[in-house]
């Protein structure tokens, strides 16, 4: 099977180019791990969005709501379990973080189910209305978060076992970033196995290409789409919980803020492509960290510039999905 290796090669290429610019190898390693961790968290949040667009051409600008809800729900659970969070025991820490993440995933997934039924379903096939209605949904969700959790930001300390860094010689690698990389890679592996090794994955990939033909073969693509939408929302909730711990603060705007990066990643990757989303997320994470270190003043626009360059090279994204 012919594989296009050029896009993933951009990841080491960017890292190699950044090495002389950063100067110090220890700083470079720290930035690289930080970039990979950030990229993988964004990938977790973006993977569901790219699939829902690919399957049903749904432009969901409300995806940030699931991220924010995940962050708030996880924060609430962790704050309620504060004694276990602050205990110097990895197991007690995990006993607090695990249910928090699970709650974030379940609540965001359930919200996704309701969002699809109430907000997305009436506007299938109407892109302009989708943009307006889902953006409205995001605004309403943000305000509801303020109503439920109050207008102030929530400070969220990481559990004791995830504070600090691993020291490898002169290089310090934050423990939490290592965990984010591990979870991100696990999510990617699970998605890759599901999409490439199961009949469900085959249906999703076929549906992304041509939903009408999948229906003509006798499969109900609407049900498939709802399942993917809920799974994507749940993943966004997981990403939101992780992002909240990464930032150590949670605000109602957390979803909208990170959604900009999520959209950049989805566009860079090629709408509907999970592999492209993975590569795009790593490129965005690395670029943000390297540029933030080398030239902080242009850091804000670096990902927009990256997106522009990639779209000049491949106007349909890194891995364009063959559409009907």
């Amino acid at each position, binding site marked *: *099977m012919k594989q296009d290796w050029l896009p993933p090669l951009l990841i080491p290429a960017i890292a190699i180019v950044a090495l002389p610019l950063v100067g110090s190898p220890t700083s470079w390693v720290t930035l690289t791990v930080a970039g990979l961790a950030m990229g993988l968290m964004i990938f977790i949040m973006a993977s569901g969005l790219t699939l829902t667009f690919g399957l049903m051409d749904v432009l969901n600008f409300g995806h940030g709501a699931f991220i924010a809800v995940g962050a708030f729900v996880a924060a609430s659970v962790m704050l309620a379990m504060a004694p276990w969070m602050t205990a110097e025991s990895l197991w007690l820490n995990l006993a607090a973080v695990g249910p928090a993440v699970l709650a974030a995933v379940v609540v965001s997934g359930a919200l996704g189910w309701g969002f699809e039924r109430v907000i997305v379903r009436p506007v299938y096939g109407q892109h302009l209305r989708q943009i307006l209605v889902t953006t409205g949904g995001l605004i309403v969700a943000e305000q509801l978060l303020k109503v439920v959790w109050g207008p102030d930001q929530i400070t969220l300390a990481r559990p004791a076992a995830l504070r600090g860094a691993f020291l490898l010689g002169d290089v310090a690698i934050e423990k939490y970033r290592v965990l984010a990389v591990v979870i991100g890679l696990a999510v990617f592996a699970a998605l890759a196995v599901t999409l490439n090794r199961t009949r469900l994955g*085959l*249906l999703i990939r076929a549906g992304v*290409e041509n939903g009408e033909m999948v229906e*003509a*073969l006798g499969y*109900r693509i609407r049900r498939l789409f709802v399942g993917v939408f809920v799974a994507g929302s749940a993943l966004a909730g997981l990403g939101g919980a992780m992002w909240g711990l990464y930032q150590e603060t949670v605000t109602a705007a957390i979803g909208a803020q990170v959604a900009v990066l999520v959209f950049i990643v989805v566009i860079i990757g090629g709408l509907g492509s999970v592999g492209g989303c993975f590569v795009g997320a790593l490129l965005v994470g690395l670029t943000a960290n390297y540029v933030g270190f080398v030239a902080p003043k242009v850091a804000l626009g670096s990902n927009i510039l990256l997106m522009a360059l990639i779209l000049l090279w491949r106007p349909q994204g890194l891995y364009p999905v063959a559409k009907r």
Partner: protein
Amino acid sequence: MAEPLLSLRGVRTNIGRYHILHGVDFDVPEGGLTMLLGRNGAGKTTTLRTIMGLWRAAAGEIRFAGRDIAGLATPDIARLGIAYVPETMAIFADLTVQENLILAARSGPPDAARLDWIFGRFEALKRFWTLPAGNLSGGQKQMLAVARAIIEPRRLLLIDEPTKGLAPAIIANMIDAFRELKDGAASLLVVEQNFAFARQLGDTVAVMDDGKVAHTGAMAAFAADADLQQHLLGLGMGEHQ
């Protein structure tokens, strides 16, 4: 007289504000091959898509095996035993040939004997089994689109222009395949522009003109009536090969 497998009565279809079908009536007999002919824009593709539920009939009745299917969703229509090969082929380009066929075989892994039979007709599919379907040539994609429809026995096959862009040798294979399917109790409704192909294969014919069926009958009689062909299809004698 036996009840037809598929029967359309007064079917009207609108796409947006355009009225495409103006009351289509014809039957597809059980176990036969019906050719749906007509000039470009006559409404043939719209008729197949309407039967398949991909476009909703605004009025009229579509009966399949005695059941009205006009209001059913496309997957439910497919599950009644109707397979569809669109004019665009609609193969899944990012999936391999194997994955395309696995997906089309709804009831489980493709039957080995059936697969061998398909490979006998369309050898290229075996050769490119693990390649992404997007890498196939136009003719090979057409073979895959047809193979996907016949990977499992279906009661009715709706096939839109199967010979489009195909080499003569492959067309001959396709004729053999359709004949064997017919002998195996499948019924076929085939939209075709290639009249030489149509006359070889068709048992009955329905000719469409401007969103209606202008003629139905036996293919042999239609093939013998040059004036009728000229009138309905605009065919000259040179196109009768």
